[in-house]
């Protein structure tokens, strides 16, 4: 079992110029729980996710990881130092829609890079741990491959290995399967399920309703920068009360009919 973080999001707002991207978001995530963020595109799901590790700056409100405010020294105050932010980010893993592997490094080097440059491990030690992480995502035989020689699913698993090798207490997934061919989605979701089963706190922006239904502890539905509802997956996905969720699911189901 991993040591897992809690996330507390309180009254978070985000503006891009005049555009109000996040509106008074409140969301709390208990340690070891999996929360899926769903909703139409442009609803602010990814923006909210990216605020959690401060890749995106939020304009007001508070985001706390294990009680510690991220991004700012005090709520509404000055930004925290780069060093403090990096220290917090070390225990937050992130997986991107476009994988974002470094193309000039092999799978092993991609995973070992953070261990060497951030954790300061020796090359030998870092590569041993990186190999372990790659075996965990089922890529023990692909370690010497560059990303250009891996399928999308394999690349995304390397990206997950890169994150978990750092031994994070919280994992953020930004539409991890949206850029994959349908037949490659399963292998990535399986790795994510295994991670959830280990007790990792996970926040997942996804369009995979099946994953949300079966793996998530809670599902949060967002629309137009608002958090419309947060509840057990069944309550959101099967008996939604809010007409906005009903409309979203109707479109989703229609698209998946054939």
């Amino acid at each position, binding site marked *: 079992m991993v040591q897992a973080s809690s996330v507390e999001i309180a009254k978070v707002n985000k503006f891009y110029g005049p555009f109000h991207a996040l509106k008074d978001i409140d969301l709390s995530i208990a340690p070891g729980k999996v929360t899926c963020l769903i909703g139409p595109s442009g609803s602010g799901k990814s923006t909210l996710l990216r605020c959690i590790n401060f890749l995106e700056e939020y304009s007001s409100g508070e985001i706390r990881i294990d009680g510690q405010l991220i991004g700012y020294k005090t709520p509404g105050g000055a930004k925290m130092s780069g060093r403090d932010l990096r220290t917090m980010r070390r225990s937050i*893993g992130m997986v*991107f829609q476009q994988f974002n592997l*470094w193309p*000039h490094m092999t799978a092993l080097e991609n995973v070992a*890079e953070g261990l060497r440059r951030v954790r300061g491990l020796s090359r030998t030690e870092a590569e041993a741990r990186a190999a372990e992480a790659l075996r965990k995502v089922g890529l023990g035989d692909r370690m010497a491959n560059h990303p*250009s020689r891996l*399928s999308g699913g394999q690349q995304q698993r390397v990206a997950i290995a890169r994150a978990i090798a*750092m031994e994070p207490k919280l994992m953020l997934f930004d539409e991890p399967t949206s850029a994959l061919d349908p037949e490659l989605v399963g292998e990535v979701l399986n790795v994510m399920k295994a991670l959830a089963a280990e007790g990792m706190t996970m926040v997942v922006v996804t369009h995979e309703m099946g994953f949300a239904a079966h793996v998530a502890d809670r599902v949060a539905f967002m629309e137009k920068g608002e958090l419309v509802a947060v509840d057990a997956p069944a309550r959101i996905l099967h008996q939604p009360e809010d007409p906005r969720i009903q409309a979203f699911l109707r479109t989703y189901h229609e698209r998946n009919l054939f």
Partner: protein
Amino acid sequence: MDPMIFVQYSPILIRGFGLTILAWLLGTVFGMALGLVIALVQRYAPKPVTWVIQAYIEIVRGTPFLVQLFVLYYGGPMVGLRLDPLPAGIVGLTIYGSPYFAEIFRSGFRAVPHGQIEAARAIGMAEPAIVRRILLPLGLVSALPALVNFSIILTKETVILSIITVPELMYQVQRMSTETFRFLEGNFVLALFFWGLVEVISRFGRRIETRITRHLIERP
């Protein structure tokens, strides 16, 4: 064409060509280094600093190399900067090339997908490590063809050094021409030597390119 004059003048022509290569090589290497520093400072420095550097870029790019060289060589002593012809030529090439190289590096950096930088930030990498491990290697790959291209342009700018009496190839060719009244031969030598040099540089550039892009090309 009188082949005998080539035989007669070959020692000084070869010495001149050697000096051309030396001035080009050092001017290019230093110009690239300065350009890289400028590109990095432009990326990370606070606004007022970038304005000053932008002004430098505009001035150097906006004026002819000939004028810059005159100012450096003949104007320099007025402010206590006394340089011999060759060092002045190398410094001149360095200054002249730097803003072009800076712009090439800048576009190389811009070609690095932002997501790959974010991935490094997300695991807690510090900015210097990101520059060294991600931005530079990937940016250089994108910048390489343009870097080679501008280095080739610079070879031909070296002829201007003859005006401040650097005894490089152009200087020696002019000497040969005025001494023998054979101007066609002189131009022939210039064309041949520069063509050869450019050919070598471009082949070398292509070889490096093939080498460093071998892992970056999609071939599943």
